[in-house]
């Protein structure tokens, strides 16, 4: 029982809050940037409405590069850029740009895949109605791919949770950082277990919430 006496509840609370803030803000920006990027990838892809082999190739290459850089490296490499964008390369604020840059290409690929699942016949029918490109995207493609996009966002949000754990390197804080600092560096296993449990609960909630939304929008 002695173990539980030294639990830094205030730190845990703060770390939970930090994780949630990093998650919410970075997920929001990932959605805002990744959705259009995914749509662009889809539309310029092979045999699609705005087929542009060279453009698609270049964009795809950049996305692949960003996806292959380990997040911990991205975190450090991006420091100068982060400083310019948000005024600091440290703490929760400093963690957000690398989180967004790390997750956006990942999410964009998932969006592209979800859009490819849309029946070509539906796109053709919408074209035949005299729809503009924008109407095809907003009226047909996104609503039809919505369950897939939501599922992609869920996977991305969960990936972001694990990315936030690494942000401790730049003093980003959060539950993952706490687990490393107390559990690994100070051998306080109980703190580590609590933070890990909290992370598991967070991931479970995200997955459940995502699954519910997918079901809500799926009428196939």
């Amino acid at each position: 029982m002695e173990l539980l006496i030294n639990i830094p509840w205030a730190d845990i609370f703060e770390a939970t809050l930090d994780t949630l803030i990093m998650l919410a803000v970075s997920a929001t920006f990932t959605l805002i940037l990744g959705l259009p990027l995914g749509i662009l990838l889809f539309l310029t892809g092979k045999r699609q409405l705005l087929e542009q082999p060279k453009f698609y190739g270049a964009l795809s290459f950049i996305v692949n590069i960003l996806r292959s850089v380990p997040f911990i490296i991205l975190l450090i490499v991006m420091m100068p850029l982060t400083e310019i964008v948000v005024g600091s390369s440290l703490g929760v604020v400093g963690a957000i740009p690398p989180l967004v840059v790390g997750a956006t290409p990942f999410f964009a690929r998932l969006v592209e895949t979800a859009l490819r699942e849309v029946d070509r016949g539906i796109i053709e029918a919408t074209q035949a109605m005299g729809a503009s490109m924008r109407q095809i995207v907003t009226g047909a493609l996104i609503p039809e791919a919505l369950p897939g996009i939501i599922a992609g966002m869920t996977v991305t949000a969960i990936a972001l949770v694990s990315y936030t754990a690494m942000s401790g390197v730049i003093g980003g804080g959060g539950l993952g950082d706490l687990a490393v600092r107390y559990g690994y560096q100070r051998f306080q296993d109980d703190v580590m277990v609590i933070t890990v449990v909290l992370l598991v609960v967070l991931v479970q909630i995200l997955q459940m919430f995502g699954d519910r939304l997918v079901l809500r929008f799926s009428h196939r």
Partner: protein
Amino acid sequence: MPAILELRDVSKNYRVDQCDIPALDHIDLEVISGEVFGIIGHSGAGKSTLIRLINLLEHPTKGAILIDGQDITRLDKNELRVLRRKIGMIFQHFNLLSSKTVAQNIAFPLRIAGHYNEDEIKKRVGELIDRVGLIEHTDKYPAQLSGGQKQRVGIARALATQPRILLCDEATSALDPQTTQSVLNLLNEINIDLKLTIVLITHEMNVIRMLCDRVAVLDQGKIVELGEVSNVFLHPQHPTSRRFVYESEDIDEEMLHAAFSHLESRLIRLTFRGNRTYEPILGNIMRAYHVDFSILSGRIDRIKNMPYGQLILGLQGDSVDDALAHFRQQGLTVEELR
């Protein structure tokens, strides 16, 4: 009657691996306002490409496509979108949006057109749902409907913007025979009530027989026969047309010829059209000329609303020629097979 649609010397090639594969080869055709025009062909004959040229989902490599005398291949993007609202289209696999209800699917083309207010949309959608008989399914999603119901939604959606032409892309090929019949009846009703021109493609001669006024037979990218359905159906000239007719009628010509080869009598094919089909012409004339006859094979049915009968007869007697002349005089078609 004026032509609403004209294809003039239209060709379409697909580029595959630096080679031009011709899909359509010098197509000329005219569709008259208010008619049901059918295009029949086997898969790969080019019919799917042909129907997609009419709303420019595919662009011709060469040639002009005229709607109301205007060459649509020269339209810019915006003009083309406006034109497409005047051409409805239904599809083999319905292509409804799974994320929208029946009512939302039907409202979709109206929202795309952009110049209808909510009240107008609601009213129009109500009318259309009523016309296709789906009132109790208004708020269902396509996944909850049967194939026939889905196609009815497709038809309502295609009619939403009051098109001048309706394109049907194998609209009944995914449906069972009974549902096919009810969808064809609905299309026929629409053709008559709205005086809507219908262009359809199919590989089933029965669809042509039940719904179309004229038909073009497409084979390897070329129109090999074109005419009134009754003519093509009763007297197909091209081997491909003949194959379509005989397939649908379950006639095996070679087998028939073999079966009749030992008969001594003269063989003729007699074709009745219209109400004459129901008159006792055959018996009367045969009796009058003392000709003995045996009916070797035959079919009696309707082409759209016209009854027809076509019999292969074996004839014996001294005045067979006089009898045949009398048949011709009565307006029947007589073909001597042997």
